[in-house]
């Protein structure tokens, strides 16, 4: 029987009421009295020397409050990078300065050169058009392999080259890996591109800066997944504002998918300008602006090789990846192709020897950083495409080859530094085979062929590392932050609770699912619990939401804080019950003395905490409010198996997704409805990457896919109803809820299944093509099937 409340129940989302009635409070809905508006004049040239920025004609224009250029920010800090990678020679990565407004040079189309603050946005834009900018254009660096050639123009003149780092992992294994390849019975090699994407949350970024001369306090309202992180990065590293004088508010946020993790220069600008202009300053990104200023995702070019013995056991894996950083290092950019990617290269398989090389490269493009999955989709895609290719080369069933090489025993220490605590890859694959109705595929293929279409079936597995992350571990790996999470639980006198979490909800439904957990622990109705997030003024220092970490890390902090609450409440209850604490138990919202009918209700205990007339004041303080910080001891390792069935029109190359099945192991589940919804959304983004989405630049560094006219977003007609299952559950062993995280799985696990299915369809039409790059557009399919290749 499904539960109707608490952990395991598909409680309806409370946040829906405001979103469904137009009462959400998104950043663009916030207006501060007297606010001015900023328009950023952005470079339309990818690479050039900024010879002059003449604002004189614009200064006196109607409505102009003040115009800022790079010179105004010379004394201001660089937009910081939060992760330092050490290269394979033990040297730190090359780290360029990242100015708030361009100074000296422009390095990508969209880089802000000047900012006009005016009474209205249109006036700001009018004045921006009157600014005369002289740029001496330099050759643009776009292609990564060209960028690392000795004679390539340098994106940053003060760095030795365009190579940010050359990372080897695990460097000590390299010799053994190379030897295993020499001894292999079969080697499968694959070169592929993981296409550059734009996250495109439907809410464009917005930032409103405010400053009070009376108090010296700054407030920044911003579309962020982690307001405390923004406060720390911007306050400490860019503007020099102590955290106690800076409040960052991320109210309702309309989707993030990673791109709202990072600290952007527009946030620093509006905060700085609010003081400089002595009035609030608001920036609202247009979608077109978002395409050239939001950090992009993916963009890897990889060669991967798999060594197998004569029995088809995987013996070694070797990869060589170029990872695009763009023109500057965005907040977590260096960690994505390294620690979030290299450590996942074992996948679901017991390959004993692995070596990963990653060259991170600066180019004259928008910075690239984490996007839903962040490194793990790149790892999964190359590995699962490679295993499929190996199966076809060897003439064995792709599922059988996978099963043969599955990791079977847990915990399992991979050769790439992580230890999977739990998993059951056989169970998810068994479940998937049942869901995908493989037995019926031949008939479905026949039916497609009768219509002149081809039909293909593709499968893949995935493993991911979520719940980022143990602070001491990531510290050793170069993170310049801790990755704990925090929670304060405040119990009111009448028994209701306020959960103040450092996690941030921007679509995930924390207000509902977090309440379910606390209500379940105490045994009270969910509506007695309120969840507060997104404001540094009323939540403890937290690290925010990304990497599928909210429930695994933030939820664990919440459990710990609630445990402290319960422990103290029990002390109060035992006093009220005149019983020994050890005899008192909490059940269904009441404290009972074991074996008796003596009990005191939750609300009576909480009232006593705040009206301590009959209260053990010598032993404990009045009040009932506790804070916990939780630092995980390991990552969590969700896993699963996905299958995709496509129909392909050989005349046009059009691919349609006919079926998609996903069998996931997320460990324990708090709200199955929300979990399923998270998988749905991830699947659409993964299918989008596989079939539709492509952020493309030309050789001059001009962005070709600069709006929804050219960047293909998945729409309702592009996707099917999905079949999603999460009944295979191996609970996480090291967090109190046994949860693993579900936010990214769909996006990680789906692209290889789609591409494997497309290739299967093409093969059934007689094609001998063994790889096709994403997005698998009709044009690419048609060219591949007609021999010209793209």
């Amino acid at each position: 029987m499904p539960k109707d409340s608490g952990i395991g129940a598909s409680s309806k989302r409370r946040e829906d009421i405001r979103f469904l009635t137009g009462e959400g409070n998104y950043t663009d809905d916030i207006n501060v009295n007297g606010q001015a508006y900023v328009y950023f004049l952005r470079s339309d040239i990818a690479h050039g020397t900024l010879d002059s920025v003449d604002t004189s004609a614009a200064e006196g224009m109607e409505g102009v409050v003040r115009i800022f250029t790079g010179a105004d920010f010379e004394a201001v800090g660089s937009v910081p990078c939060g992760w330092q990678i050490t290269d394979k020679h033990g040297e730190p990565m090359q780290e360029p300065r990242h100015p708030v407004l361009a100074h000296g040079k422009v390095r990508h189309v969209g880089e802000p050169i000047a900012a006009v603050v005016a009474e209205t946005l249109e006036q700001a834009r009018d004045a921006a058009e009157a600014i005369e900018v002289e740029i001496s254009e330099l050759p643009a660096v776009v292609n990564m392999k060209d960028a690392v050639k000795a004679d390539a123009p340098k994106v940053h003149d003060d760095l030795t080259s365009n190579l940010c780092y050359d990372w080897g992992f695990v460097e000590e294994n390299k010799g053994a890996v190379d030897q295993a390849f020499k001894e292999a019975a079969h080697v499968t090699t694959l070169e592929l591109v993981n296409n550059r994407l734009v996250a495109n949350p439907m809410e464009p970024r917005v930032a409103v800066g405010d400053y009070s001369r009376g108090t010296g306090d700054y407030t920044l309202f911003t579309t962020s997944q982690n307001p405390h992180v923004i406060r720390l990065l911007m306050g400490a590293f860019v503007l020099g504002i102590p955290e106690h004088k800076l409040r960052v508010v991320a109210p309702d946020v309309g989707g993030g998918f990673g791109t709202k993790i990072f600290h952007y220069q527009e946030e620093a600008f509006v905060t700085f300008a609010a003081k400089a202009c002595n009035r609030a300053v608001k920036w609202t990104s247009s979608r077109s602006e978002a395409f050239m200023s939001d950090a992009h995702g993916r963009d890897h070019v990889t060669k991967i090789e798999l060594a197998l013995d004569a029995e088809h056991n995987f013996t070694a894996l070797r990869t060589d990846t170029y990872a695009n950083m763009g023109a500057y290092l965005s907040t977590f950019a260096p960690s994505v192709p390294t620690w979030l990617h290299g450590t996942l290269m074992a996948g679901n398989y017991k390959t004993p020897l692995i070596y990963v090389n990653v060259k991170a490269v600066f180019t004259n493009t928008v910075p690239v950083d984490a996007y839903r999955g962040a490194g793990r989709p790149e790892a999964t895609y190359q590995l699962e495409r490679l295993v499929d290719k190996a199966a076809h080369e060897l003439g064995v069933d792709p599922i059988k080859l996978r099963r043969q090489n599955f990791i079977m025993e847990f915990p399992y220490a991979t050769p790439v530094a992580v230890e999977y605590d739990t998993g059951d890859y056989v169970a998810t694959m068994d479940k998937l085979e049942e869901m995908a109705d493989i037995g019926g595929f031949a008939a479905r293929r026949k039916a497609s062929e009768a219509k002149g279409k081809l039909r293909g079936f593709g499968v893949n597995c995935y493993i991911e590392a979520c719940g980022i992350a143990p602070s001491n571990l990531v510290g050793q790996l170069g993170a310049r932050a801790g990755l704990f999470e925090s929670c304060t639980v405040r119990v009111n006198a009448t028994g209701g609770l306020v959960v103040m979490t450092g996690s941030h909800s921007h679509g995930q439904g924390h207000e509902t699912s977090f309440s379910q957990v606390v209500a379940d622990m105490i045994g009270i109705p969910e509506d007695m619990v309120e969840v507060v997030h997104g404001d540094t003024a009323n939540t403890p220092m937290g690290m925010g939401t990304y990497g599928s970490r909210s429930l695994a890390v933030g939820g664990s902090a919440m459990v710990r804080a609630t445990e402290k609450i319960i422990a103290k409440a029990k002390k109060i209850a035992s006093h009220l019950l005149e019983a020994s604490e050890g005899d008192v138990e909490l059940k269904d919202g009441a404290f009972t003395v074991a074996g008796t009918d003596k009990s005191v209700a939750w609300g009576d205990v909480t009232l006593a905490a705040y009206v301590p007339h009959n209260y053990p004041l010598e032993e404990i303080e009045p009040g009932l409010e506790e804070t916990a910080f939780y630092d995980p001891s390991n990552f969590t390792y969700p896993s699963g198996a996905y299958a995709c069935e496509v129909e392909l029109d050989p005349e046009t190359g059009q691919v349609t997704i006919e079926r998609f099945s996903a069998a996931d192991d997320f460990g324990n589940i708090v709200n199955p409805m929300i979990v399923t919804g998270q998988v749905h959304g991830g699947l659409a983004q993964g299918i989008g990457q596989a079939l539709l989405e492509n952020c493309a630049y030309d050789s001059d560094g001009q962005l070709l896919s600069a709006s929804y006219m050219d960047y293909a977003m998945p729409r309702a007609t592009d996707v099917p109803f999905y079949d999603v299952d999460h009944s295979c559950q191996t609970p996480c062993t090291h967090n109190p809820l046994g949860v693993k995280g579900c936010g990214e799985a769909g996006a990680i696990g789906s692209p290889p299944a789609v591409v494997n299915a497309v290739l299967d369809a093409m093969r059934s039409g007689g094609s001998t093509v063994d790889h096709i790059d994403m997005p698998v557009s009709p044009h690419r399919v048609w060219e591949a099937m007609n021999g010209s290749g793209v």
Partner: protein
Amino acid sequence: MTEVKMTVNGKAASGNVEGRTLLVQFLREDMGLTGTHVGCDTSQCGACVVHVNGEAVKSCTMLAVEAQGAEVSTIEGQAAPDGTLNTIQQAFQDHHGLQCGFCTPGMVMSAAALLKDNPKPTESDVRHYLDGNICRCTGYHNIVKAIMAASGQDVSAIAGE
């Protein structure tokens, strides 16, 4: 500046606008109805869909002066006066047809227009009708399901949680 008068959610509304003022700006900035959202600048995402004289339109692609004298309805006018969600809104909640909520007002308004013209749409009808409404969170599954449920159809056979 031109004075525009229209009816918004059944109430008289007026204001002075520039020629270039978009209907969505009038609604959000002059009327304070911030439920209607702007998600793109190429008339594709549909976060701004409202009804003008009963028809779904993109309020970011219509001038405020063009709505002179019109009956406009927005997401704020969909629930009953006592706050009870209408059938479509309730179906979106029941079937988890929204996550971040940003595209939701446009989705609900498009769904209302669809069901007015086509009271029992097929899955394909719904998907095609949503051609101009982009959602990045839900993968559309639960939106399509919610709209079909709101039309009174049995959706229990569609994969659920």
